[in-house]
C-alpha cells in the first residue's frame, strides 16, 4: 500500500530517495532499522575529537587575552592603539566557526547517506530535546561533538543513560553554566570566598542546568516540582564541570583531560539533598547521578517524552491514545528506548493517511536533497548557511527549549517564499536528465492530481522540479 510506504519513508524517515523501496511490511522495515543503526558511521568518523576542538577554543581565548594585553601595553606607552587589531577576534573566531561548519556538513551528509533514516531522525529529535545552542563561544566547536558523542551512541539504550550522557556532556555543562557553578559551602568557595567576596566575585551556585533538567529534559513544566527541588538538584550538580576551561587557581582543582566533563570534588556542595521528597545522601559525583536516574524513571518524564515523540511523529496535537501507548511502553520498560520506539511504530494513529506534520526547514532541506540526489546544498552555501537562511540554523535554536515542533513555528509567509526560492536553486543545480514527472511518482507517489498536473505542465524540467519541491505534499510529511 503506497500510503504506508510513504509514511514510513517520509514521516518516520527523512524523505524518499528515487530508489527507496521499503519492503511489503513498512513497520518491519522501520523496526529492523533500530538494530542496524550505526552510531558512528564513516561520514562522521573523520570529525575531530574533543581535545582538538577544545584546543581551538583555548587558542582563541589565549590569543584574545594576549592581544588585549598588548593593546593595554601599547596604550600605556603612549602610542595610539593599532586599529587593525580590532578585527583580530573575528579572524580568530574563524577557527571555531570552521569546526562548526565542518560538523554541520557531516551531519547533513549522514542524513543524506544513511541506510537507517528512522533512527537518524531520532538523532535529530533527541539533539533538539536536549538542546544546546552554539550562541556561546565555547559551545560553537563542541556542538557537533555533542550530537555525535552524547546523543548518537546512547539513544538505543535506556533514557537514563541518554539523560546522563547529554546533561553531563561538556557542551551542555558549558551551555547552561554548570561548568561555573560552585557550591557555596564547597572547599573551593570556603578557601577563596573571603578574598573574592571582598572583591565582589564570590563563587556561587548557578541553577540554570538544574532548572532545565526538570523543566525541559525530564518532568516537564508545571508538573509539580518546586523551586526548592530546582535548588537541591543544582546543589547536587555542583562539582560537575569541564576540565581545561578554568583559569588560575580553579584550573588546578579540576583534574582530567581538557574538554572532558569531569567531577571536581573541590567545587561540590557537601551534604545530603532532598528532591521531590526523597533524600539523597552525600555521595560526590553519584549524588547528582542518582537524582538524574530517579528523574528519568519518573511518570511525569514518561508522559513528557511520550507527548513530544507523538507530537514529532504523529501530529502537532498528539492523539491522547498514542501518547498513552508510548508512555506505557516507557514505564513498563524502565525507559528502554527501543521499546518506546517500537510502541511508536505500533501506534495506529501514526499511520493515519494524510500528512500530519509541516516539514521544518531542516526536514525540508534533507528531503529535497534526498529526492533530487544532490550531495550538498546548491551554490557555495554550506549546510550551515542554507539553514540559517531558511530560519533554522543548525544547533543554534537560541534557547535550551530547542526548536518548536508544530506548524505555526515554521509555516510563515517569509519562510515559505524562501523555500520556494531555494527550491528553484536546487532545481537549477540538478541535471536536466531528471524528469520531475517520473520523479514525483517515485518520491511523492501520493501527490494529488493537481500537483502532478502542475508539474507536467511546467515549461522546463527545472521548473517542474522546483514545483515538486514546493508542492503542498512535499512541504509536509
Amino acid at each position, binding site marked *: 500500500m503506497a500510503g504506508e510506504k510513504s509514511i514510513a519513508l517520509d514521516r518516520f524517515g527523512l524523505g524518499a530517495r528515487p530508489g527507496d523501496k521499503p519492503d511489503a511490511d513498512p513497520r518491519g522495515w522501520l523496526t529492523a532499522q533500530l538494530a542496524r543503526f550505526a552510531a558512528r558511521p564513516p561520514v562522521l568518523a573523520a570529525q575531530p575529537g574533543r581535545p582538538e576542538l577544545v584546543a581551538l577554543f583555548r587558542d582563541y581565548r589565549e590569543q584574545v587575552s594576549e592581544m588585549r594585553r598588548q593593546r593595554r601595553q601599547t596604550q600605556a606607552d603612549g602610542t595610539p592603539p593599532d586599529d587593525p587589531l580590532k578585527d583580530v577576534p573575528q579572524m580568530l573566531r574563524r577557527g571555531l566557526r570552521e569546526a562548526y561548519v565542518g560538523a554541520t556538513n557531516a551531519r547533513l551528509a549522514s542524513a543524506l547517506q544513511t541506510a537507517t533514516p528512522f533512527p537518524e531522525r531520532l538523532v535529530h529529535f533527541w539533539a533538539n530535546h536536549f538542546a544546546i545552542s552554539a550562541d556561546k563561544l565555547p559551545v560553537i566547536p563542541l556542538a557537533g561533538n555533542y550530537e555525535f558523542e552524547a546523543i548518537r551512541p546512547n539513544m538505543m539504550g535506556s533514557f537514563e543513560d541518554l539523560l546522563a550522557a547529554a546533561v553531563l556532556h561538556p557542551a551542555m555543562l558549558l551551555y547552561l553554566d554548570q561548568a561555573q557553578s560552585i557550591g557555596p559551602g564547597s572547599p573551593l568557595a570556603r578557601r577563596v570566598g573571603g578574598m573574592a567576596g571582598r572583591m565582589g566575585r564570590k563563587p556561587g551556585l548557578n541553577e540554570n542546568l538544574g532548572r532545565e533538567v526538570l523543566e525541559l529534559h525530564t518532568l516537564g513544566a508545571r508538573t509539580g516540582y518546586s523551586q526548592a527541588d530546582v535548588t537541591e538538584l543544582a546543589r547536587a550538580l555542583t562539582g560537575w564541570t569541564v576540565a581545561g576551561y578554568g583559569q588560575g587557581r580553579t584550573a588546578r582543582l579540576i583534574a582530567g583531560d581538557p574538554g572532558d566533563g569531569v567531577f571536581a570534588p573541590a567545587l561540590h556542595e557537601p551534604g545530603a539533598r532532598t528532591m521531590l521528597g526523597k533524600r539523597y545522601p552525600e555521595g560526590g559525583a553519584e549524588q547528582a547521578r542518582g537524582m538524574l536516574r530517579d528523574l528519568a524513571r519518573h511518570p511525569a518524564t514518561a508522559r513528557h517524552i511520550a507527548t513530544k515523540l507523538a507530537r514529532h511523529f504523529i501530529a502537532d496535537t498528539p492523539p491522547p491514545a498514542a501518547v498513552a501507548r508510548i508512555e506505557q511502553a516507557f514505564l513498563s520498560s524502565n525507559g528502554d528506548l527501543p521499546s518506546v520506539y517500537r510502541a511508536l511504530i505500533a501506534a495506529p494513529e501514526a499511520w493515519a493517511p494524510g500528512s500530519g506534520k*509541516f516539514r521544518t526547514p531542516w526536514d525540508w532541506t534533507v528531503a529535497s536533497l534526498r529526492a533530487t540526489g544532490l550531495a550538498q546544498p546548491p551554490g557555495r552555501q554550506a549546510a550551515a548557511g542554507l539553514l540559517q*537562511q531558511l530560519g533554522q540554523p543548525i544547533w543554534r535554536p537560541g534557547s535550551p527549549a530547542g526548536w518548536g515542533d508544530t*506548524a505555526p513555528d515554521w*509555516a*510563515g*509567509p*517569509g519562510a*515559505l*517564499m*524562501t523555500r*520556494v*526560492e*531555494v*527550491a*528553484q*536553486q536546487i532545481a537549477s543545480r540538478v541535471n536536466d536528465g531528471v524528469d520531475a514527472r517520473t520523479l514525483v511518482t517515485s518520491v511523492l507517489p501520493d501527490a494529488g492530481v*493537481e*500537483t502532478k498536473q*502542475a508539474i507536467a505542465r*511546467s*515549461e522546463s524540467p527545472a*521548473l517542474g522540479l*522546483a*514545483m515538486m519541491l*514546493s*508542492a*503542498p505534499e512535499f*512541504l509536509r510529511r
Partner: protein
Amino acid sequence: MTSLPLSRRGLLGAAAVTGAMTLLPGIAWAAAATAKRFVFIIQRGAADGLAVLPPLGDPVLAGLRGQLFDPDAIKLDGFYGLHPALAQTAGLFRSGEARAFHAVATAYRDRSHFDGQNVLESGGATPYAVKTGWMGRLLPLLPTQDQSALALAPAVPLALRGDRPVATYAPNRLPQASDDLLLRVGALYDADPQLAPLWAEALKTKQLAGDIGGNGGRNGGELGKLAASLLVPADGARVMMIETGGWDTHSAQKARLAAQLRGLDALVAELKAGLGPAWQDTLVMVATEFGRTAAVNGTGGTDHGTASAAFLLGGALAKGKPVAGDWPGLASGSLREGRDLEATGRIEDIATEALAAHFALAPSRLSPLFVPRA
C-alpha cells in the same frame, strides 16, 4: 522613463561599481556640477511614530501603550525620546546631524497601505491622482549632471517616476524565484487552507520589499554600505530611493519593531560611514505612509492610524530643534476618531523646505513636487 536593472555581479567590488555606474544614463563620464546627494528612505507598512519617537512628556503615553511602552527610550529633549534601538542615530541628534518631525502626515486620511503609499510617493493630494512621483519631478530641477537617479528596488518606485531615466538595483540574498514559478506555486497553493493565506501574505511582503530588520540589523547595515558605494563615485547616483518594508506591526510589535529599527540604525550608520566626506553634502529623509493607533491592540501590536514621525539626516542640516512639531496630545479627546495621533504637520512641507535649502533652490521652484491640498 527607463528602468535599467543592474546585475548583482556587475556591482560587486569597488572597481565593478564604478564600471556599473557608467551604465547610469545621462551621467556617463560627466563631472558632477555639485556634490549634493539626496536619499529618500521609505518605510513601507506604516511605521509606528509613537514607538520610534515616543513623546515621553505626554502623561497618557505609558497607559495607552501598555506593554509597548519602553522606559529605556533615549531622551532627545525635555519631551521626546528616541527608540533605544536607534542608538547610533541618537548620536547624530546630539551632533545636529539628525532632526525629527512628529505628528506629521501626507494629505491622505484613510488607512490603506497602498493608497497611502501612493500619496506619499506621488505627492498628490488624493490617491492615484498623479501618475509620476515627487522625486521624479525633482530631477529636471537639478543640474543635468546631478540628475542620475537610482532606486534600490527591483523596479522603479512611483516616487522616482517622471520623464528622467532611473536605474534600479535590487540587492537579494537569494536569486529571486521567477515570476512564472511564483504564479504556478500560487495556483498550486490556492486550494490549501494553510498555504493559501501564507502565500498571499508572502507575495504582499515581497512587493513591500526591503527586509532591513533581518540578521540582527546587519541586513540594514549591508544596505547602507551598498547605498553609500553607489553614491560615492564621481559618476555615481545623486538621487536615491531606498525601500524598507516590515513596518506593519499588528502583532508582537515590541521585538519586530526593535529589529526593524536596529536595521534602520545600521543602515543610517553605514550610509554615513561609507559616504565619508560626502556625508557633508548629503540629505536623507525617512518617512512612512501613515502612523499607527495610539493604543496597543489585543495582540501586542498596533493597527493602522494617521500621523507618524519623519526624519531628516545629513552632515549639513539646517539648524533647528532636535524634534519639531505641534504636539496634538494623546488624551482621548485629542485623538483623531478617538484612536489615532492627529496630524498637525505636513510631510510635503518638511520635504520642500529641506530640499530647497539642500539644493539652494527657491521653494517656489519646488512647487511642482507636491499638489497643494484642497
